[in-house]
C-alpha cells in the first residue's frame, strides 16, 4: 500500500444526483479522493451521506452523474444524456476493487468467519483456497481475531463481527475502502475496538471514505473532512479547520449540536 499520492485520483464523483421517488437526496455531488487519503463525511441523518457511499459502488443507481474508480469510468457510460449501463460482469469487477463495510455488518450467517473472508477471494478472484486462507489468517490477526476463524458470526459480539467484516473487505485487496457508519449499530463499549482497526488501516495508507458520527475519530484520523447537509457538500476542509473554525453556519450549527452532548 502506498502513502498519500495526491496526483492519483482513486475515487471521482462528478455531478451526482439521486432521487428516492420525489425526494432529491443527492443534489449535485462533486468529490475527488486521492490515493492514500482518509476522508470522513459527517452530517445530520438524512443528508445523503450513506446514499453517496452506496452510489460509489453502484448499490444505488444515481439518476445523473459519473463515478470514476482509479481513473476509469465505472458502471455506465453517458452519451447525449442517455446512460448505458455496463455489463453485470463489468459492474461486479469494479465493485471487487472497492471494499465496503456496512452499519449492520452483513456477515454471511451460514459461513464461518474464515468462510466469510475467503468466499469472494476464492469465488470472485479465483484465488486458490489455501492462499486465501493464509491471507485470511493474516487479516484476522491484524484485526485482533486470530482465534476466531472457525466461529460463526452469531457467536461473536457486534464489535468482533464488524472487525470480521473489515477483514472480509480487505481480503479482496481493494484499492479503496468505503465505510458506512460502521460503529453506529454497536454498543458503546465495542466502538473503540472497531475504530482501532480503522486507525490501523489508515496508518497503512489505505484510501478510505468514511461516513461517521464519531467526531473525535474524524478529527484525529482524516486527512480531510466533508460536511454534508440536505444532499449537498456544504463544506470540506482539513479536520483542524472544520472542527476548529468552520466557515459555514450550517457546519457550525451541526457541530454545536453533536459536540455539546
Amino acid at each position, binding site marked *: 500500500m502506498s502513502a498519500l499520492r495526491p496526483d492519483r485520483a482513486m475515487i471521482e464523483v462528478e455531478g451526482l444526483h439521486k432521487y428516492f421517488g420525489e425526494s432529491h437526496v443527492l443534489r449535485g455531488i462533486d468529490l475527488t479522493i486521492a490515493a492514500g487519503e482518509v476522508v470522513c463525511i459527517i452530517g445530520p441523518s438524512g443528508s445523503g451521506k450513506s446514499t453517496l457511499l452506496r452510489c460509489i459502488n453502484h448499490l444505488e443507481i444515481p439518476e445523473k452523474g459519473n463515478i470514476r474508480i482509479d481513473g476509469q469510468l465505472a458502471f455506465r457510460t453517458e452519451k447525449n444524456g442517455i446512460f448505458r449501463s455496463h455489463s453485470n460482469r463489468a459492474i461486479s469487477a469494479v465493485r471487487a476493487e472497492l471494499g465496503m463495510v456496512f452499519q449492520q455488518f452483513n456477515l*454471511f450467517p*451460514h459461513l464461518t468467519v474464515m468462510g466469510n473472508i475467503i468466499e469472494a477471494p476464492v469465488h470472485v478472484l479465483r484465488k486458490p483456497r489455501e492462499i486465501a486462507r493464509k491471507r485470511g489468517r493474516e487479516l484476522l490477526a491484524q484485526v485482533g481475531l486470530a482465534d476466531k476463524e472457525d466461529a460463526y458470526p452469531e457467536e461473536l459480539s457486534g464489535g468482533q463481527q464488524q472487525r470480521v467484516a473489515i477483514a472480509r473487505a480487505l481480503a479482496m485487496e481493494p484499492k479503496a475502502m468505503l465505510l458506512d457508519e460502521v460503529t453506529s449499530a454497536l454498543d458503546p463499549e465495542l466502538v473503540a475496538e472497531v475504530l482501532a482497526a480503522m486507525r490501523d488501516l489508515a496508518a497503512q495508507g489505505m484510501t478510505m471514505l468514511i461516513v461517521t458520527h464519531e467526531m473525535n475519530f474524524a478529527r484525529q484520523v482524516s486527512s480531510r473532512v466533508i460536511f454534508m447537509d440536505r444532499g449537498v457538500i456544504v463544506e470540506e476542509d482539513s479536520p483542524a479547520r472544520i472542527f476548529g473554525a468552520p466557515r459555514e453556519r450550517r457546519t457550525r450549527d451541526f457541530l454545536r449540536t453533536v459536540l455539546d452532548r
Partner: protein
Amino acid sequence: MELFNLEIALRNFGPLLAGLMLTIELTIVVMALSLVLALLVALGGLSRFFPLRWLVKSYVEAIRGTPLLLQLIYVYYVLPEVGIRLDSFTAGVIALTLNYSAYISEVYRGGIQAIVRGQHDAAAALGMTRMLAMRRIILPQAIRMVIPALGNYFIGLFKDTALCSVVSIQEVVFTAQILAARNFQYFTLYTVVGVMYFAVSFPAARLVAYLERFSKRGYRRRRS
C-alpha cells in the same frame, strides 16, 4: 361375520405392502424431481426477464387453480387424444411433479425473498454477480429456512399419491381396490391401508417437527 378379519389381513398383507412400496417409490421420485424443478421455477419467477416471469406465474396459477385429481386425469386420459400416450406410472409422476413443483416453487420464493437486503448488498459489494450471490449466499440460507415446509410437502405428497389410483398405478389404494373387488373385505383391507399410511407419515411428521426446531436454531454448532 366380524368386521376385521385377521386372516384376510394377513393373507393380503403381501400385495398391500408391495403397493405401499410403490407408493413410497412414487413419492420419492416425484419429490426429487419437484425439488429441482421447483427451484428452477422459483428462480424463473424472480428473473428480471419479463416473459419468463409471466410464463412461470401463469404455470403456477394454472396449477394452483385446478384440482390435482383433474391434472392426473388430464395427463393420463386427455393427452393420448393429442397423441401423447404415457404409461400410468409416468403419467402419475408427470402430473404430481408439475403440481408439487408449482407449490414448492412458492415455498422457495418465500425463502429467497426472506433473505434481507444486506446479504445481497454484501455479496454485490464483494464483486459477486447476481448469479454467484444467489448460488453461494442467498440459496443456502433460503433453503435451510424452508426445510420444514418442504418436509410437510413431502408428507402431503406421500398421501396425495393415493389419487394415482384413478390412473391405475398399482400403489397401495389401487391394490386394495382390486383385492376388495374380489373378496368384499372393505373394512379389513382399507383399515390395513390406513394403518400403513399412518405408520409412515406419523414418524415422518415427527422428523419434520425435529427439523423445524433445528432450523430455528442458529448456525452455531452444538458444543458438547
